């Protein structure tokens, strides 16, 4: 089946190319406004990238490639490295996706396929409201409500269970069961991206022509089969887009993470141990930073952009393959 986008593309080029008529002036103005807005977005974004690159440049010049591989972060001796923050950022965002995406898709499927009609609006609204909670509130909820429960009912029993075991004994062992750490940050981030991914995924599933679904049900498919073989392939491109939006939020999220990640500049093999992310380090130190420390923080900002860049390229490749298939 030809995808919708292809049809639109055809329609678009034709209508633009053959346009004639009295309202051409207004048409040009509208087109110009759209073009100008797009350019403005481009300019602002380029300006931000430029200013951060400019600020981070001295750190890159000073430490070279070693900035990426060093785990040092010492203000006294002016030694800075990005490794701990980069790993913390990737680990927490990855955990957030692993936890958050299945939940989001589950919610989207529930809302579009399973939920009784009268409950769709209120339930959908409830999930969307999770996006209305400011990130600082998530941070406080994570620190005051979630972390103590998590320490008591997850960290302590799990640590006792796996202590001494190979691999899992390191990965899931909490030296200090305080409830905060990389995994806690991942969980909070997962909760934060759920409304974004779920609401877009739901809209996507909704947009799929009803007739497709009806025909699948008509030949005796179960809900699972309709979801697996009809809906997901149809919406996959857009859903990957939604996941990327969630990943973007997870990578750059600042306040909530800062509250629950423990903010330690140490490498640890355990996901229960405290760590830090690029954004949390910037938030923690920016106000008091000066000189090379400020440059190093800006350089961290550059690396965050680079990570996002790579993630987006991967996403694009995935999306392209999905389109072909």
């Amino acid at each position: 089946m030809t995808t919708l986008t292809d049809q639109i593309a055809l329609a678009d080029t034709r209508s633009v190319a053959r346009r004639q008529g009295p309202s051409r002036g207004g048409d040009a103005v509208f087109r110009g406004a759209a073009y100008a807005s797009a350019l403005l977005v481009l300019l602002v974004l380029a300006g931000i990238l430029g200013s951060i690159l400019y600020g981070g440049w001295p750190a890159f010049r000073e430490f070279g490639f070693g900035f990426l591989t060093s785990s040092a972060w010492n203000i006294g001796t002016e030694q800075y490295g990005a490794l701990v923050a980069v790993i913390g950022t990737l680990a927490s965002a990855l955990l957030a996706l692993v936890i958050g995406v299945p939940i989001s898709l589950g919610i989207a499927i529930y809302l579009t396929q399973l939920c009784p009609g009268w409950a769709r609006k209120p339930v959908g609204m409830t999930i969307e409201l999770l996006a209305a909670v400011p990130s600082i509130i998530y941070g406080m909820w994570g620190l005051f409500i979630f972390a103590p429960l998590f320490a008591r009912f997850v960290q302590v029993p799990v640590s006792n269970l796996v202590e001494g075991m190979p691999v899992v004994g390191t990965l899931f062992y909490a030296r200090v069961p305080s409830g905060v750490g990389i995994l806690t940050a991942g969980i909070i981030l997962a909760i934060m991206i759920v409304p974004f991914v779920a609401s877009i995924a739901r809209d996507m599933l909704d947009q799929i022509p009803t007739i497709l679904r009806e025909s699948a049900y008509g030949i005796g498919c179960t809900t699972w089969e309709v979801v697996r073989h009809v809906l997901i392939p149809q919406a996959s491109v857009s859903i990957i887009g939604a996941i990327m939006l969630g990943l973007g939020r997870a990578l750059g999220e600042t306040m909530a993470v800062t509250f629950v990640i423990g903010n330690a500049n140490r490498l640890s093999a355990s996901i229960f141990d405290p760590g830090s992310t690029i954004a949390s380090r910037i938030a923690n130190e920016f106000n008091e930073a000066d000189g090379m420390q400020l440059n190093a923080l800006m350089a961290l900002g550059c690396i965050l952009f680079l990570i996002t860049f790579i993630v987006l390229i991967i996403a694009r490749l995935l999306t392209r393959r999905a389109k072909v298939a």
Partner: protein
Amino acid sequence: MDAANTLAAPPAGTVPPAKRPSRVRASRRTADRSLRIACTLATLLGAIVLGSILMMLIVEGVKGLSPTLLTQPTPGPGSEGGGIANAILGSLVMTVIGILIATPIGVMAGTYLAEYGRASKLADVIRFLNDILLSAPSILIGLFVYTLMVRPMGTYSGWAGAVALAIIATPVIVRTTEDMMRLVPGTLREAGAALGAPPSVVIRSVTWRAASAGIVTGIILALARIAGETAPLLFTALNNNSWFNANLMGGVANLPVMIYQFALSPYPNWQQLAWAGALLITVTILALSVIARVVIKPQRAR
């Protein structure tokens, strides 16, 4: 949607499995049931988390509610009375200005990407930078606006705060606008064009209308995102522990920075105001979402 549900639901849900043993094999039924249970649990989990957060806000926030909360500016630590009226007003003004700046730019830029630019190199670059910016730590955006506006003007201002918020909101709006407009079937557009409508008219009265629910969702998401932003305001709008100037020059009070400062203070009256503010900001965004949904009847593209 409802039609689909009524069509789809009975065969799988209401008919007892025992009556149709041969039609659906056991493994298929198990897979189906697991999916249903998993999806329901996921939704329940989301609701429980929201409930828990609201519960925390209500339990802590209600203590801070007082008759003067909405009429008086923030008090000193340990002072009697006082409210958060200045912070509410400041937040309202800056968020509204921010969204008013971001909405036309975001929607138009999204329109460009979806309708005019489409596969061009420029559109690709913009789309890419836009996605990158979605994940930019907002503190860096605050810093950019600081360099752009606060330094040259020599003073903090609500305008700088609004611009910083607008920059954060724009990529969200661009992204959702483009996505939603792309989902509008080409046949609709062709029908418009066949009536002799120029592209701009087709976009405004066909594509936008068809995608309006999605675009509004995007704007609400953007609103929700910026309404609670602390970091970019710290460098741009600063804050104000009293009323601010009507021309928005100088520090402008706002809820997020107020919450941040007061919640981390050791003084009970400040902590209570912080919780009350947190409750208020969350409930407001909540109400906004509800109102937006009730007032604007979604007209989904078919």
